[in-house]
């Protein structure tokens, strides 16, 4: 009898320990994500399964792209080395679950910022690193030159679980056109099915169309229609409830954009420490104590600019020079006619 009682007490004690452990860590005030990242020695970053210009792995497994650069910037700021990132390729369907269930700490995967996603499902969007919009790709020999040329019965291939599915419905409904949506889980199958002739049009974000077009058997036989049917501000996402980590990711991105604004590049960043402009000096950490507010040292922003480069460098390297979208369009600085405008680092 006593034997069992003893077992029971130890069991109860064990369970009690487990419970106090969980509640205590929940209550920890400091950024848990930052602490874990520093302990692990790498940033856990969720990216796409291969979207040239945004997040794409080469044969050797090296990831490049503007989305990838956001994670690299955070790694440079937090760990001092832009290469200390572990990339996890995710489908559109898996991405939010991976983030909320603690598999990754940043989701930088051409994800559209919408109210319901931001408010409803435990996510926080920290900014916009690419202003996009949904468009349509069609075959050149179809003679279609505008979205107004679509007729009832048109079949449209696209990705599953994206805002694209909803925009497509809004668009075709507003035109009163009955259509056939064909949705695949992976982008490669969408491209293959459209290429084979299963669909009359391929619809997704215009940057995606430009990037996937390269994968078609005859890219020159296809054109992207001029119209844009939706607003798609794409940006990095973090879990709700860790505002310090949220700030770190937000300001890592902002630093890249502001560096371009002030002409600070990976090549001249060191020499900018002695700049006459106080804003530039703050940006490279030569003035003020901005790093401390984020729980980082003062060189954090300098490392981002030196190791990853400013936004313009990242765009040129990944999107312009690869021939995906040479024209920056809205993704130009506000001072140059675009809409890239970030709050000042001070």
């Amino acid at each position: 009898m006593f034997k069992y009682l003893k077992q029971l007490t130890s069991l109860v004690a064990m369970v009690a320990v487990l419970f106090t452990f969980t509640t205590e860590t929940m209550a920890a005030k400091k950024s848990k994500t930052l602490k874990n990242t520093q302990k692990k020695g790498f940033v856990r970053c969720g990216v796409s399964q291969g979207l040239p210009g945004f997040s794409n792995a080469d044969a050797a497994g090296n990831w490049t792209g503007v989305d990838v650069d956001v994670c690299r910037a955070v790694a440079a700021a937090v760990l001092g080395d832009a290469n200390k990132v572990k990339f996890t390729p995710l489908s559109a369907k898996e991405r939010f679950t991976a983030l909320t269930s603690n598999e990754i700490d940043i989701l930088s995967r051409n994800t559209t910022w919408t109210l319901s996603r931001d408010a409803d499902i435990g996510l926080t969007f920290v900014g916009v690193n690419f202003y996009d919009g949904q468009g349509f790709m069609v075959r050149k020999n179809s003679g279609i030159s505008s979205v107004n040329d679509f007729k009832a019965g048109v079949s449209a291939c696209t990705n599953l679980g994206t805002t694209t599915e909803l925009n497509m419905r809004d668009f075709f409904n507003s035109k009163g056109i009955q259509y056939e949506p064909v949705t695949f889980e992976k982008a490669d199958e969408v491209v293959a099915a459209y290429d084979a002739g299963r669909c009359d049009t391929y619809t997704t974000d215009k940057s995606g169309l430009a990037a996937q077009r390269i994968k078609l058997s005859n890219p020159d036989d296809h054109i992207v229609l001029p119209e844009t049917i939706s607003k798609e501000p794409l940006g990095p996402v973090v879990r709700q409830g860790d505002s310090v980590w949220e700030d770190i990711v937000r300001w890592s991105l902002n630093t890249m954009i502001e560096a371009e604004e002030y002409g600070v590049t990976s090549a001249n960043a060191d020499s900018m420490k002695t700049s006459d402009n106080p804003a530039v000096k703050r940006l490279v950490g030569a003035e003020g104590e901005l790093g401390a507010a984020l729980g980082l040292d003062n060189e954090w922003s300098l490392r981002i600019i030196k190791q990853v480069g400013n936004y313009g460098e990242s765009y040129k390297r990944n999107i312009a020079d690869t021939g995906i979208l040479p024209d920056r369009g809205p993704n130009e600085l506000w001072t140059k006619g675009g809409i890239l405008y970030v709050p000042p680092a001070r």
Partner: protein
Amino acid sequence: MNIKKILPQLLTLLVVILVFGFFSYNAQINMENRGITFGYGFLSQESSFDVQFSLIEYDGSHSYFRAYLVGLLNTILVSVIGIIFATIIGVVVGIARLSNNYLIERTAAIYVEFFRNIPLLLQIFFWYFAALRALPLPQDTEPMFGVFFLTIKGFFVPAFVWNNLDIFIYSIIAAIISIIFIRIYAKRKQENEGIQTPVLSISIGLLLILPVLSFLFGGVDASIEVPVIKQLSQSGFTYEGGIKLPPELISLALALSLYTATFIAECVRAGVQGVSKGQKEAAASIGLTPNQVLKLVVMPQALRIIIPPTTNQYLNLTKNSSLAAAIAYPDLVLVFAGTALMQTGRAIEIVSITMLTYLSLSISISVFMNWYNKKIAIKEK
């Protein structure tokens, strides 16, 4: 009662409760921390996404629950088609493997070994993209019998357009009910007087005559709507009217049935070989023809061996149909655990509903097959 017997039971119960409590408590805390709410209220909200192929009327203005039904019905549809074809192919191949004809036996064996040893997902991709590459564009297709059009955009078949369809259905129901009564009557007559009634020809006659009468006198009218080609752009065409079977459905059903048929064929072979040789020889010695031996002696005994493992194959086929998401066939996983999950973000609710649904589907198949198994089991008299 011996306390030594009860205490371990109580402890086990306590541990189970604590483990479940710990996990649900943890999930609750984590969800609260991340601002995730829990509830099934979203099912009545407007879904605002469309689905390419649906057995019931559906568009984005319907609710998420309706989207769930669309996915469920599509899953059931492809499973039923798959089970029917897998059974037919499986039985034919299984018997072919027992053939004395060397060529037939070898062909069946190669088919079984080839298809059961390649991963199913790969086969689905193969059939889908092979079909897409091989099928003609709508404008290039040659009609079959003038009314069927097999194209890359789907298999377009004529549809019946009915007037007073309900009366036609009533006539069929009436025919079936009278057949049941006639069968009971015939059985009684045979038992009492030993006279056989030609039940089969009467049944077929009833099934033909009653519906024909409904056409002649019931105001039932059916016309055939043949698909017509429609130009969408200078190079894009499609067909309008009739019924459209999407290529996704065709290739998925094909892949599922060819794959599962190999396992069913092996079940059938095992079943037939499991009937002892003496049974066949005894049957032959009383003068039964080889076909009669198979139908009256071997098959009734073989079925008892075949049914239980075949039930497993039916269950596998149903669960494997969830691979549909890879090739854009709008089944339960694609529509509900895919798009709906993404648009609402309600992972726990949707995944739990989806799991429960597959569980219920599997249990229904099991219950039906167990009932059938019991029906054909040896009845000791």
